[in-house]
């Protein structure tokens, strides 16, 4: 353990800012998770791998010589169709079934995705250079890469746009109606099959945006998808389904936790700390609910 962070206050500012900016990105992924969980009642273990795939799309256009920031527009468009196809292939068969079936089936999809990405893009850690430079704060003692600020800004932009879209558009209203009561929506003429496919597509598109942003702020590797799934799952169970401000706040909280865990426990325990936090949150909620003789549903 290393308590350097408590001796140098500027490190704390650095960790906090990094954590909050990272947390906004996590919140975007978690929003997609909450959307599909709420509407289709499935838990998608492949969420993180969709994110990484989105990142690789941005990385590919970077290799072609296009600035990787364009990935935040191109990647979601491609990922929407990937999500749509995935729904038509597998997900539509697990929608009405037991949740564990969806967990296992998406686990299988995650393994396939990881391996295919390993074949296509190689097993190296890659990053797309955005060349945005860095911002220095407080007498150069805090450094902030501009790409992180850019990614937080784009995340907020897309999240707000999606909320407005869900409120106003015809498809958005159909999605919300299906989430409330799929059967009633069907009777009233909503094509629920199409709504489900669109929901999964939108979720994949959100993952694509997040992935494109990760490709310029963090690093990409075929096997790092699962931590993103667990982070978004954690944010959703803390915030609840369909509560967007809470998703944003708990996303930032998770980002802060991670940065501080990184400084205090050391980088080798960072992912371990995230998974352990998931266990602790679930156990905490279980004890809190068991006082009322209830359990997590």
């Amino acid at each position: 353990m290393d308590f350097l962070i408590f001796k140098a206050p500027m490190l704390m500012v650095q960790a906090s800012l990094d954590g909050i900016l990272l947390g906004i990105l996590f919140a975007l992924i978690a929003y997609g998770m909450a959307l599909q969980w709420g509407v289709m009642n499935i838990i998608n273990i492949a969420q993180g791998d969709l994110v990484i795939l989105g990142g690789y799309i941005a990385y590919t256009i970077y290799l072609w010589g296009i600035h990787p920031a364009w990935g935040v527009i191109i990647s979601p468009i491609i990922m929407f169709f990937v999500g749509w196809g995935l729904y038509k292939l597998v997900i539509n068969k697990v929608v009405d079934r037991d949740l564990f079936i969806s967990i296992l089936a998406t686990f299988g999809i995650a393994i396939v995705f990881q391996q295919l990405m390993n074949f296509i893009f190689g097993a190296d850690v890659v990053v797309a250079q955005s060349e945005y430079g860095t911002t220095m704060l407080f007498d150069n003692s805090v450094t902030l890469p501009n790409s992180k600020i850019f990614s937080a800004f784009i995340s907020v932009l897309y999240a707000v746009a999606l909320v407005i879209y869900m409120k106003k558009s015809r498809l958005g209203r159909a999605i919300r109606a299906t989430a409330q009561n799929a059967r009633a929506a069907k009777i009233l003429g909503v094509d629920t099959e199409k709504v489900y496919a669109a929901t999964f597509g939108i979720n994949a598109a959100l993952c694509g945006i997040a992935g494109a942003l990760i490709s310029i702020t963090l690093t990409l590797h075929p096997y790092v998808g699962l931590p993103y799934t667990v982070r978004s799952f954690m944010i959703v169970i803390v915030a609840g389904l369909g509560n967007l401000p809470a998703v944003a706040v708990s996303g930032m909280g998770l980002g802060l936790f991670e940065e501080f865990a990184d400084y205090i426990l050391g980088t080798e325990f960072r992912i371990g700390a995230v998974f352990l936090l998931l266990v602790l949150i679930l156990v905490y909620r279980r004890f809190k609910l068991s006082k009322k003789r209830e359990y997590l549903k």
Partner: protein
Amino acid sequence: MKQKDLILYSSLIILGLAAPYLFSAFKVQLTYLCVLIVLAMTWNLQGGEMGYNTFGNILFYGLGMYLTASVQVGMFFPLAEWTESGGEKTFVHTTAQYFQGIGVGLLVSAIVPAIIAGAIGYAILGLRGHYFAICTLGLGIAAGEIAGGIEIIGAGQGFTTPPFPAEIVDTEARGKFFYFLSFALLIGTFIFVKYIYGSRFRLILNAIRDNEDKAEAMGIQTMKYKIVGWMCSAFFCGLAGGIMGGLIGYIDSTDVAFDGREMGVFMVLMAILGGKGTLWGPVIGATLFHFFKEGLWTLILGWQYVALGVLIVVIVVYFPEGLMGWLREKYPERFGEVIDEKDRKAQVELK
């Protein structure tokens, strides 16, 4: 015991005892098979009988692996100097030390995971359904990540288990030793699970699976039985891990011990393939899976994980009841179920 059963079991035991001599080249594969069957059968106690789909049994498997190796080394030599961090000094176990070490190590690796399962059981088993599944998934991966950061057991460099004593000249001895060890474990596990299948304990587990609230209302202390069930699984998973550690000879935190991506999924898949909630399902599922894996893995080198992922999706989506479930539907009389023809017809008409 009926005569038919007697013939079946005795012929299976004779086959098992003769296997390393008949298929001398496949001893390692046979040892793997025994361990896989043990893992599938113990997973079935949770996933099939109790209805708690766990990804966390890999925790006890990995724990058993590390514990056996640590005890085996630590009993005679300083553990910190054995591993990479302490300079990776070479100590040589004598024959007696090796077998004493692995004996005590296996004992520890059975008891400690069972105690840990009991200790965390109260907190974790209070979760239900998919929350339990995700929580145990997190637990298994967290254990792997944390084990990869602890210096005394080799951290990221891994841990080499003591080599088989060189004084034994017979080159076949190592393979035979581990095979018979795992075969003994398999027989022990089978007898234990079969005993559970004939007991009241199984009915209680089934009641928890079918409706936990009602089981509680009937006056069953469900938490107590859930914890005991998990401890039983942990006991055998720990032993299986210990044997595997000795067989492989090298322990890596995320690729061998807490290998949620392979072993952790395999045990779920094998039990589902054979049929959850049956005595023979996991045995058949594990055997089929192992033959499929060993036969196909080398043919589609490089693509094996893609095949594994597709296999998971196909099995889970199309055959969630497994082989035994399919047979049960086809030949219900064989499973001692009586079907009322009139009732069946009436139901068909209703549809």
